[in-house]
């Protein structure tokens, strides 16, 4: 009986040896993928940041007027361009101190004399690395917040006409150079509010409307609410902005995409690796669900193709990408590990060698 069991023990030992040898024959394993934080909600530090920015007084709505309450953050109030519009906010100060921000700054610095950061500091007293807090990109223009007390606005806008507007704002307008024939170029408009908020664009009306919203003279429906201000980049994209992302030859696909998704809410965590979350919202639950499944299918197919073709880097990137359905919306999560970004930006670090 005991001798019979020896056969079984020998078998187990041999299977263990086989398992080890076969596992060893598979070759070196790729390192485990880094754990990337995907921004999904406000974190404690962001709640603190949000509260510190709530500097505008609460406007008590009149009893007979029912409307949305103005955000207390000047940037969010200024950004309220209306439903369907788009805005993406970059937390410039947070990004500047992130590893990704450092990589980008190194790239800028490597441009030598033409470094625009140094030029702004030397000539106009704006230290982008210290004074700038946030940059918002919208179809109506750029909005910047920060501490611009040392800025030499008169030097920066020396050829502009200046007007005071509202309680604490100055408007600057630079007329475009005269041109023969063709469509006349738009003037350059800028508004500076309380040395904290700057609008840069082409529309005097947009500049005045933004200041009106900040100073509480205009109804304000927040495009980005305060509880959506998480991540180092966040914002919403409307249908029109979607359509611009597709190449002209893909216009049919773009129209289908735009028909299903009315708005994309974007959040990017860049504190270390870059985690991206895009929530796609639409009116038709069925269409949004189909769109989510189609995207998930395409990602799976691309992942397998990358794996089969031996493109480990792309395969790993696609491993991070996933689609999470949620009724009339779904979220698409992606990640860009810092090592990957370093390789992509190696061209502006001569010491790091070629990618």
């Amino acid at each position, binding site marked *: 009986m005991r001798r019979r069991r020896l*056969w079984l023990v020998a078998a187990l030992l041999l299977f263990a*040896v*086989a398992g080890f040898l076969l596992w060893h024959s*598979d070759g070196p394993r790729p390192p485990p993928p880094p754990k990337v934080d995907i921004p999904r909600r406000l974190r404690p530090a962001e709640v603190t940041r949000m509260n510190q920015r709530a500097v505008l007084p609460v406007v008590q709505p009149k009893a007979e007027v029912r409307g949305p309450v103005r955000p207390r953050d000047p940037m969010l109030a200024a950004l309220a361009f209306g439903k369907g519009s788009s805005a993406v906010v970059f937390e410039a100060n947070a990004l500047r101190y992130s590893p990704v921000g450092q990589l980008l700054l190194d790239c800028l610095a490597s441009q030598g004399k033409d470094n625009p950061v140094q030029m702004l500091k030397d000539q106009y007293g704006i230290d982008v690395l210290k004074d700038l807090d946030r940059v918002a990109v919208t179809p109506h223009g750029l909005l910047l917040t920060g501490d611009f007390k040392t800025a030499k606005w008169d030097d920066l806008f020396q050829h502009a006409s200046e007007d005071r507007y509202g309680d604490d704002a100055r408007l600057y307008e630079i007329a475009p150079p005269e041109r023969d024939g063709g469509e006349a170029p738009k003037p350059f408009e800028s508004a500076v509010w309380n040395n904290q908020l700057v609008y840069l664009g082409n529309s005097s009306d947009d500049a005045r409307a933004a200041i009106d919203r900040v100073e509480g003279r205009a109804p304000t429906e927040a495009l980005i609410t305060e509880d959506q201000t998480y991540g180092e980049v966040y914002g919403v994209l409307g249908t029109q902005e979607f359509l611009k992302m597709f190449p002209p030859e893909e216009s049919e696909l773009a129209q289908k995409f735009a028909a299903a998704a009315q708005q994309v809410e974007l959040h990017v965590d860049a504190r270390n690796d870059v985690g991206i979350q895009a929530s796609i919202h639409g009116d038709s639950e069925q269409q949004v669900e189909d769109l989510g499944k189609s995207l998930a299918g395409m990602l799976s197919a691309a992942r397998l193709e990358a794996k089969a073709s031996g493109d480990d880097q792309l395969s790993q990137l696609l491993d991070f990408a996933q689609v999470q359905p949620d009724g009339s919306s779904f979220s698409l999560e992606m990640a860009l590990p810092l090592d990957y970004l370093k390789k992509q930006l190696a061209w502006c670090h001569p010491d790091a060698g070629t990618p």
Partner: protein
Amino acid sequence: MKTWAVTLDLLREARSRKWFLFLGGAITLGLLVLGLSLKLEVVDGALAASRFFGKSLDNPMMSADVALGAVFSVASQFIFYGGMLFGIFSCSDFAPKLLSPGRIEHLLALPVRRWELLAGTFLGVLILALAGAAYGSVGLTLIFGVKAGVWTVRPLLSAMLAVVGFIPVYAMMLTAAVFARSAALSSGVGGVVFALGVVTSYRDTLLPMFSPGLGRFSFNALTVLMPRLARLAELSSQLAGAKPVSATVALSLIGGCLAFGAGALMVGIWRFEERDF
């Protein structure tokens, strides 16, 4: 010695079967067709250029053994997969016949230990596989040696890898037959091990398809032990085609397959020792 007697008994039985006569005939016919009809101008040209110009010419023609590498690679794949499938179907009833009522009682009455019976059967099938692979590969080498002057042992080595791949498959077939005396089950188990051996070879590609958790863990655990047969076939092809191979990977693959086969045979022997007839 007693094991060898059982092996010889199995080989005698195999000789009397039409299956193996058919295999021998098929290999012979294949070699004859290759030998008589293959166009070897590329190889002839390369050889002639080498003879005529010597080393002074920056010869644009590929060397003869490189030109033949592709042929040997294809042949090695044919031997590996063809031989494996043929082996699964033709050898599936050796063990069930050994265990058939009447015969097994007779064998157990002889002064032969039970493990020697099973080991002898396994060894017999192994010799059959070796003989078939060696006949085909040596024949191929002879044809290209005589016709093109390329003498190489690579086809023979790659054919031996096909035999290594068959070892775990037949060990599982033999063990399955000990648990349930059925030729159909035996060949079915062989087919499953063969299929899993191919799937397992691509486990790194397939693993990301499973969501992290129980599914991925189960697939990982199941496939880590299975012999990587498709990778062994690839190794056989690389060896035949004179392509560089990693000695560490090759030895691990071969060692893993042999250990798996031996482990499966031990399970069969354990069951055979336990079983009443």
